[in-house]
């Protein structure tokens, strides 16, 4: 699992209430709570940037309808190589 990146997660910081269920639930432990607070006084979750397998568990554990969006890599090849090269960081 480690090192084999298959997806990524984005978290809407305005919707996240910082309950931490996604962090607890994530099988590869690739989510964490941000040290910063959002305007509602919560530490929103964020993707650490590696190890996401796009399993979607965090999405189903999250009580907010749209706080978490899970992506997976569509096609291996050039795009996949680009992601491996670290370009995904820009999208975050």
């Amino acid at each position, binding site marked *: 699992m480690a090192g084999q990146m298959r*997806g*990524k997660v*984005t*978290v*809407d*910081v*305005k*919707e996240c*209430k*910082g*309950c*931490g*269920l996604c962090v*607890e*639930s994530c*099988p590869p432990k690739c989510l964490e*709570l941000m*040290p*910063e*607070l*959002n*305007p*509602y006084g*919560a*530490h929103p979750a964020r993707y650490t940037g590696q190890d996401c397998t*796009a399993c*979607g*568990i965090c*999405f*189903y*554990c*999250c*009580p*907010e*309808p*749209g*706080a*978490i*969006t*899970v*992506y*997976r*890599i*569509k*096609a291996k090849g*050039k*795009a*996949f190589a*680009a*992601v491996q090269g670290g*370009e*995904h960081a820009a*999208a*975050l």
Partner: protein
Amino acid sequence: MEVESVIGVDGLEAKSEVTAEAQSKASLEVSKDGYEPIHSKSPVFFDLYQRKSELKHQTHYCPGCGHGVVHKLIAEALQELGLQDSTIFVSPVGCSVFAYYYFDVGNVQVAHGRAPASATAIKRSCPEKIVISYQGDGDLAAIGTAEIVHAANRGEKITVFFVNNGIYGMTGGQMAPTTLVGQKSTTSPWGRRPANEGFPLHMAELLATLEAPAYIERVALSDNKNIMKARRVIRKALEIQRDDAGFSFVEILSPCPTIWGKNPVEARRWVLEKMTPTFPLNVFRDRRPEVPTGDEPLQRTVGDVLEITPKTHLHNVSTTKRAYHFKNVTIKVAGFGGQGVLLLGQLLIEMGMREGLEVSWLPSYGPEMRSGSAHCHVCLSRERIGSPLVSRPDVLVAMNEFSLRKFASEVATGGLILYNGASVPADFSAPGAQVVGIPAAEIADKLGSTKAANIVMMGALLEETECLAPGTALSVLEDKVKKPDLLEIDRRALFAGRLFIDDNAHIGAVSQSDGFA
């Protein structure tokens, strides 16, 4: 965790815009960075919620609340099954009272505990719709116990999602019927003691003793595996309704971190460790109920049941020389109990039925019946009747002075008041209405029975308003009155009432805009 910095609102706006931009970019430009979104906000939810401006982005639920997860699973199932546009969501009273903020489906919010009753009405009116009753444990298992038991027992083809967190969450943590033994709440501060407060109520097991339900299962939002199981079960319950297979019920054990005084992760674990031993996760029912089908047609009119054939030809055959020139008449009949007030109303509607009119009769007994007045509301209409309640009657038949004074002010402008008395009391006036005094009791007494006073009034009513044909009145009386001597009195009373109007009062009738005098 050490707080390194706090993002200001402005900073967050900027950041979230970047996030949103990145998201839309990512979804639009799949080929460029190679990502496609596989789990995102369901279109069954509104984009922005109609809450206060700064809260439009998020639900009102506490962090870690189970409602959000259940909402999400229902939304996903509706989307996948293609049912969004045919779903009516019945929101309860409880924390999920605002479900209509979130679900972009048909929404109804109903009284506490009554969601299954309202859902029954909606489903029976719109059988092609998917009707979801979403309830908490205070709503379903306490105040709404009767409604859910009877809806399940009737096998209503609705889906009930029962979110059980063992406590009254919205009102601040009072003991619910589902509170665990020993669990502390504001109303069981020493923990629930079965000797005093009874045992937790097992709704799924209770409903599974009934014949009619098609599907009953209990799931828990306790860990990843059980949440994914809940997803399948919720979808299955909706599929059962889609396939018209019967009543489906899903009990969802759900965390309430705020009231339980636990953090969201602990609360979720508590569901598994403490709740599931009391509320075991199981499929309690999964079969299509065998409902014997009767030969009787489902929809019958009152006329069918009473074996009254509407004589529609009466519209064309004028039994009097007068034409039927009204759209609808509303009548209020009032008087002492025993004066035949309710019977007069019943006779009128039966006549209406025989003439093919839409009719309604609403008796209003009240404790007044014991020593005071009774009254009933009658509607006769050529169109469908919206409400049987008559607040502005066209005609008031007042069988005593008390009723005259009490109800005269309600009569519509240009209306008619028929009063049982030779003369109207001197200090009485009813502006805008025509008042006719008829000594009905005296007339009836002369004919042989004061009990026929109501028939005298009916004769006067028919003659003055011409709303129904006197011939119909006679045929109804012939069917209803069994004793020949009484029938003769009634027949003469009817005639006497008509004659009295013809002789004394048929002058200066107030015309109404619809031609009804």
